[in-house]
């Protein structure tokens, strides 16, 4: 039969390939990633188990003291708390600002929809450093926003909006909002418009429709968007470093400081290992939520 002749000749799916053939194909890539990624990460974690012996030097004896200090000393633990607080604020702002936009993009029949999706994604393709620079002429004491507020008489003296925690929140919301909008748009699109109309025709006001119909049905998207944005917010370095003006100490800026100026590698390595575990666990959780959501729909 013709079909058996074909499958006999198929080199990709049937023997002659020995079972370990594909393992050998995988080997070079696995080796490369092992050497350039996994070895340095293991080395970093090992360094966090030593004490500092002078600037840039690491002692030879193993200890868990770095972790004990980081998790009990109020100064270090405060950095971890501040990082989480930053993540929560950014997630909250992204949800509030992103939800209406996602709803609009999911429901609109406008011919501008494609263009608006393009605009949502486009900031992501412009260098993060450049996007962050743009906040300075906007948020500086002499910048556009303060000029507007002063002209309109909203404030009597310029607000400090940059080189502090506020600036970092604004910058991260801007950088991560597209991820929230796209995640939410996908989920809201799958909700039947009829459900909203049914609720409205039975007398529910817009708020009630939102709280009782839209929000519960879009909850999987809200959760996975929040997890993605939170993880990226606590992992970000460039934005907190630029917009915090060297004054905002979160995990990422603290780690960089230990390696760039303080040269306390064990302390930096400890914070890096904690951030790594935290971010990896959140990413795995986000993937689980996504898989569960895909299985449910």
């Amino acid at each position, binding site marked *: 039969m013709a079909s058996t002749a074909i499958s006999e000749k*198929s080199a*990709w799916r049937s023997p002659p390939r020995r079972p370990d053939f594909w393992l050998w194909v995988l080997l070079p890539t696995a080796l490369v990633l092992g050497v350039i990624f996994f070895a340095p990460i293991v080395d970093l974690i090992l360094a966090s188990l030593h004490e500092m012996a002078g600037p840039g030097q690491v002692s030879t004896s193993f200890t868990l003291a770095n972790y004990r200090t980081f998790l009990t000393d109020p100064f270090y633990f405060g950095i971890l708390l501040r990082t989480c607080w930053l993540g929560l604020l950014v997630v909250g702002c992204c949800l509030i600002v992103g939800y209406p936009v996602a709803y609009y993009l999911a429901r609109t029949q406008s011919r501008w929809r494609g263009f608006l999706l393009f605009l949502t994604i486009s*900031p992501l393709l412009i260098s993060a450093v450049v996007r962050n*620079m743009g906040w300075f002429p906007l948020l*500086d004491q002499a910048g556009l926003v303060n000029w507007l507020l002063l002209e309109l008489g909203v404030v009597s003296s310029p607000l400090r909006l940059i080189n502090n925690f506020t600036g970092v929140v604004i910058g991260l919301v801007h950088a991560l909002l597209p991820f929230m909008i796209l995640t939410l748009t996908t989920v809201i699109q799958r909700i039947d418009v009829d459900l909203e109309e049914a609720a409205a025709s039975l007398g529910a006001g817009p708020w009630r429709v939102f709280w009782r119909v839209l929000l519960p049905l879009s909850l999987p998207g809200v959760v996975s968007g929040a997890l993605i944005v939170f993880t990226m917010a606590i992992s970000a370095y460039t934005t907190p470093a630029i917009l915090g003006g060297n004054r905002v100490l979160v995990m990422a800026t603290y*780690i960089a400081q230990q390696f760039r100026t303080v040269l306390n590698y064990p302390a930096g390595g400890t914070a890096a290992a904690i951030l790594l575990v935290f*971010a*990896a666990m959140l*990413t795995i959780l986000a993937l689980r939520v996504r898989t569960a959501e895909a299985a449910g729909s």
Partner: protein
Amino acid sequence: MTRRMALRAVVLAVFAFLLAPVIIVVIASFNGGPILSFPPEEFTLRWFEQIKPSFVDGLYVSLIVATSTALLSIAFGIPAVLALSRGNFPARDALNSILLSPLMVPALVTGVALYQFSLAFWDLTRISLGGTITGLIIGHLTFGIPFAARAMLAGHARFDYALEEAALNLGATPMQTFWRVTIPVLRPSIISGGIFAFVMSLDDVPIALFMGGGNATTLPVRIFTTIEFDFSGDVMAVAAVIVVASVVLMLLLDRLVGIEQLFGARH
């Protein structure tokens, strides 16, 4: 009706927020007065004339590193993707997760890990990787390979094996089948994976900051370390040039591959 208007107003305001910092960079770069003040005082082109050669050097470094990263990510990604998609060996799913796992690690953590590792490597071999182009490419491959692999794994999921069977049946050797059928069929996902690795490499600060230095300093790192201390007009002019170049590239990309598809590779 008013509700719809309110929603539109909110949407407009959010898009203004998304675009504002990018647009203001271009406006500010023509400001002859204090660079951060608004409204601009007088129109000037002087910042563009004052762009330092070090930024042009940085651009060269960035382009070399990003191109090498994209090509090597594809070269290492394709065999891994084929093996993970077609092989039937134990722990395949685990190996798949391990291949993609560098994307879970914050780039800064990878950056400091590589930095420390390059110091240890120098102690052992007296070969210096920090502050070299090679070091930068190695650093960017840590996310380039997984990003490219992810795009290609998604592309390979729709692979039609009948095409390969037909080629083999018609007398093509396995090698011919690979180059003339397999690779062309996977080409769209190979291209979007490569572009993705390229764009991420151009954008990166944390890894290039710790692996670079001296002559091996990328453009974003050059800008980053400059504005850490001093916010001058010529840096704003460099940023304005990057914005315009990015917009042109984006429009080209949108025509060529579709920007949404490209973005889909990220998650």
